[in-house]
């Protein structure tokens, strides 16, 4: 075994490494120079350096042959998520540009947040994945406390307790997988579960093996489901967003979701890859079913509950739950595409996530900007008069809301279109009744998506009519000054519209083919545990 310094691996990890190093530095010395340095600028430079390092890898980089290199993955998908996380970090940074009490801490923690999400995206090892997720979660507690509005303590407590509970579930699932297979390498776990012969272990009782798998699957879903605010684990979202202010809502509605979905993709890769090998038939057949059910209830409940809200942040919280559902629907259908079809649910899900990020970020950022120097915007009718005193931002806000509704010429339309198309295009064969069933079930899911998009239009329309149609009783004397946050708002607006007209930039068929094939297996993995790799593998 080669034990020299793994240069290739270091180079591969350098973007995140830069972020973490600089963040630690800022957190260490920042408190002593609070007022003297423009911390966001320092942080922006750090982000840009890290981004440059990432660009230099040119997407095809692999972490090398080193024995430690099997913990991370190169390739298109991991590259996309890394770019996306860093970009999201930069966008969110602009929200915190104004000088305030906790500035060095804030920018440092944001850098850690972005780096953590990026780590999840390239993880090929459960420990790396868990570490990345915690790097997203822990800074958000502190940020939430520092930047929430008057109820921030309450919402931080709520978020903190529920979040550590979900992390515990995730850890339970991970530990269980380790117990079953004796490794934390995700590729090795998949292979071990696939190649092992449960009958040898459990005799005739094949279901025993399935029962063993159920616990890690549920644990991991519970853990990650919290991060993405999927329905049975969504209860925190409306309350926390309500108490969090627009800036922190923007962080909480995006970063943990990117990380959570990246984690789902990494762990359940076998269930998302069409035509790929799955660990057991049980998992291959049932995880899409699980996603189907979760998507169904997330979409429906999210949209229906959003109808009842008046508070904008609560509306957005429920809408984000519904959007999680749409992405889960794309996950559910991901493995069902025809073997030669290039356009799969996974491409649709990634596209949706990206469009969702820009639209949601745009909405929260504009509302944060509009809140300056006037009474806080809480309910939808507080928006009245926006179109009068800031017509350009009012139009931008409307475009973002239309994008979330799914109106054409915005990214949101093509994102929904892609998912509905995937759901309606599940192939079936004549001699296989099971395949008909899945065909019709997914058409049903497409119907659910379409009906819910119509339901969702109602509350988005409520916001839009608040902006444009609500009569203004009195106009406050407001003057808006230029703020750096306008830059990312403009950028998200451009991206939302361009993706709606020319989706080929990001919606790429055949992009994520290497989900299964190129995953390195750690050396010496899978020696312990009931599901061992076959002898030849070790």
């Amino acid at each position: 075994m080669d034990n020299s310094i793994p240069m290739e691996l270091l180079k591969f990890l350098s973007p995140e490494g830069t972020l973490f190093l600089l963040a630690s530095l800022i957190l260490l010395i920042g408190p002593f120079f609070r007022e003297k340095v423009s911390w966001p600028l320092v942080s922006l430079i750090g982000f840009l350096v890290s981004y440059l390092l990432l660009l230099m890898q040119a997407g095809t980089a692999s972490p090398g042959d080193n024995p430690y290199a099997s913990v991370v993955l190169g390739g298109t998908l991991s590259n996309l998520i890394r770019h996306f996380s860093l970009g999201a970090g930069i966008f969110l940074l602009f929200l915190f540009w104004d000088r305030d009490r906790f500035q060095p801490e804030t920018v440092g923690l944001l850098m850690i947040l972005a780096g953590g999400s990026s780590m999840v995206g390239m993880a090929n090892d459960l420990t790396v994945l868990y570490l990345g997720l915690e790097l997203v979660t822990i800074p958000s507690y502190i940020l939430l406390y520092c930047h929430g509005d008057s109820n921030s303590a309450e919402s931080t407590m709520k978020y903190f307790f529920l979040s550590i509970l979900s992390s515990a579930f995730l850890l339970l699932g991970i530990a269980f997988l380790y117990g079953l297979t004796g490794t934390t390498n995700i590729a090795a776990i998949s292979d071990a579960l696939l190649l092992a012969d449960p009958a040898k272990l459990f005799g005739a009782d094949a279901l025993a093996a399935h029962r063993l798998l159920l616990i890690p699957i549920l644990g991991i879903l519970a853990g990650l489901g919290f991060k993405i605010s999927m329905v049975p684990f969504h209860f925190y979202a409306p309350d926390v967003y309500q108490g969090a202010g627009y800036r922190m809502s923007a962080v909480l509605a995006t970063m943990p979701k990117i990380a959570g979905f990246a984690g789902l993709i990494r762990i359940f890769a076998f269930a998302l890859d069409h035509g790929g090998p799955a660990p057991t038939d049980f998992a291959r057949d049932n995880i899409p079913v699980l996603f189907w059910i979760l998507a169904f209830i997330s979409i429906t409940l999210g949209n229906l509950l959003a109808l009842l809200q008046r508070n904008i942040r609560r509306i957005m919280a429920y809408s984000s739950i519904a959007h999680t559902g749409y992405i889960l629907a794309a996950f559910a259908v991901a493995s069902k595409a025809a073997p030669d079809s290039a356009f799969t649910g996974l491409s649709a899900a990634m596209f949706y996530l990206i469009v969702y990020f820009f639209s949601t970020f745009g909405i929260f950022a504009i509302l944060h900007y509009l809140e300056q120097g006037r009474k806080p915007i809480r309910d939808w009718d507080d928006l009245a008069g926006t179109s009068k005193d800031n017509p350009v931002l009012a139009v931008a806000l409307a475009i973002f809301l239309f994008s979330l509704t799914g109106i054409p010429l915005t990214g949101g339309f093509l994102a929904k279109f892609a998912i509905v198309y995937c759901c309606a295009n599940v192939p079936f064969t004549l001699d296989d009744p099971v395949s008909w069933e899945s065909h019709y079930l997914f058409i049903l899911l497409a119907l659910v998506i379409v009906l819910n998009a119509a339901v969702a239009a109602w509350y988005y329309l409520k916001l839009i009519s608040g902006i444009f149609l609500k009569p203004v009783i009195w106009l406050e004397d407001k003057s808006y000054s230029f703020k750096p946050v306008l830059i990312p708002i403009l950028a998200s607006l451009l991206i939302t519209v361009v993706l709606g007209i020319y989706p080929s930039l990001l919606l790429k068929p055949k992009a994520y083919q290497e989900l299964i094939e190129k995953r390195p297996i750690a050396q010496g993995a899978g020696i312990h545990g009931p599901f061992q790799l076959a002898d030849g593998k070790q």
Partner: protein
Amino acid sequence: MNSLVLAILIIPLAASAACFLLRKAEGSITRSIALAVSLALLALTSKISWDYLELVSGHSQIVSKGNTFAPVEGSTVIKELFRFQPATDTRPDAGVIRFYLGIDGLNVFILQLTTVVFLMGVIAGWKSVKHNPGAYYGLLFFLEFSTLGAFLSFDLVFFYIFFELTIVPLFFLIGMWGGPNRQYAAKKLFMYTLAGGLMTLLGLIALVTALGQNPGKSNTPTPVTFSIPDLVSDSMKASALVNNMAPGDEGLSKLGTPSGHYANMQKWIFLALILGFAIKVPAVPFHTWQPTAYFEASTPITLIMSGILAKLGVYGFLRIVLPLVPMATMDMAWLLGWLGAIGILYGAGCAIAQDDFKKMAAYSSLSHLGFCLIGIFALNETGITGGVLQMINHGLITGALLFLIAGLGDRYGTTRLKDLGGLGARLKVFAGMTMFFCMCGAGLPLLNGFVGEIMALFGMFDSRNPGYSGTCLAAASAFGMVLGAWYLLNFLMKVFFGPVEEPPFRNEEIPGDLSRMEKAILFPLAAACLYLGCFPQPVIETIRPEVRLISKIANNQVVSLVKEAVAPALPKNR
């Protein structure tokens, strides 16, 4: 011709942007820009129609076109936008969403109508639009852009994009410039149309995937395509396959063949598709958004909605439903026929009961659009021709009537019946023109309203009409023509004859007769109505190839069509 086609799409978009940028400028500047752009668009579409007529007049076009649904050569604009499947040798344009525009007999006159109606809308709002004219005309041209785009599209996705896009400017145009209850009306319109449109989207996707999937033994899907001409030829092949099956063949009942599956799927796809189009038209049980929207919108917007946007739904039936789900259309045409007939009677009944000229026009629009449905779902050549003619005629007539109503509103600030009476004494030409267009609407022979309605009814009466008997529908609808004459004459009598009743003048200014600008648009329009009433033949000849093809497909006479077009691809008759 294709640069013209692109131009009529780009000009309104550019004009829209210009108006938004000029929103701080004087109202008169934006108004003049709006008028100039509308006139330019009218000229461009006239040029397109003229070129098309020349192309078709020698019948060379009809021969070369054969049995495809493709736009005429030289008129297409194609830009590949998003490819989700690699191209195959047999069909390079499959697996891709394209920006695909074109002209054929179905849309050429409707494009013309669109620019005419928008010009009328611009002039009708000449005086009444005072608040924020830049944004108003910006939205208006965006609406024109999306409407023209929907009529021009030969790609399903782009058709849907433009179709759905119309509701966005409309929402703001009603919600910001409408009457007192405008917010409610705008929201209701948006929700109804969006919900229906989304069902149509699902139907479109299901249609494309159902045609693309080939769940036979070979398990090789045919490449998915969104191009309407390709889909039509696929659909014809599939129908031909089903027709060739022996009775009792397992195909239809148990998904025996790909086309059998297709036949099964069709009725669901049909229902999903018609929902959006029926809401857009609107057909009767889905019309509840319409009275509020038409009445709360300012009159120029009502003019545009009724004159051209309603046609989007009818056009959707013609372009998509009839040729792409022919078997289901055959089975369920009675449903739409009934909706049409009920709409005619219900709309006429409601129009009689109204106490306001504008509300009467809204309901009469509902009634007259019923004739389009009746004609189209008679499924024979006469009926469909009548439906298309009725689309054009109704656009002209209702446009002119609402234009006059807008003028009445400008002059007196009200369109309520009890405030007005005997105006014929003061507004002589005005009264004359109103009477003329009411006669057109009532279907007086030699005027254009008659031609469309009577052809639609002939189509329905045709006893050879396979599949279902339309005689009682036609009888019911014919009664609607009588009712139409009743309410129109009723209104004419109340408003223009009898003792003079006028509300107090606004601004102490005595309302004058038609202005020069109003005359400049109404007189040519009246001439067009007269011409179309006396000599509809050129129009009928021009739309004939498409109409014949649609009626053949819808009547399941596709076997012969497919044999002509793609003879080798057909399996032998079992």
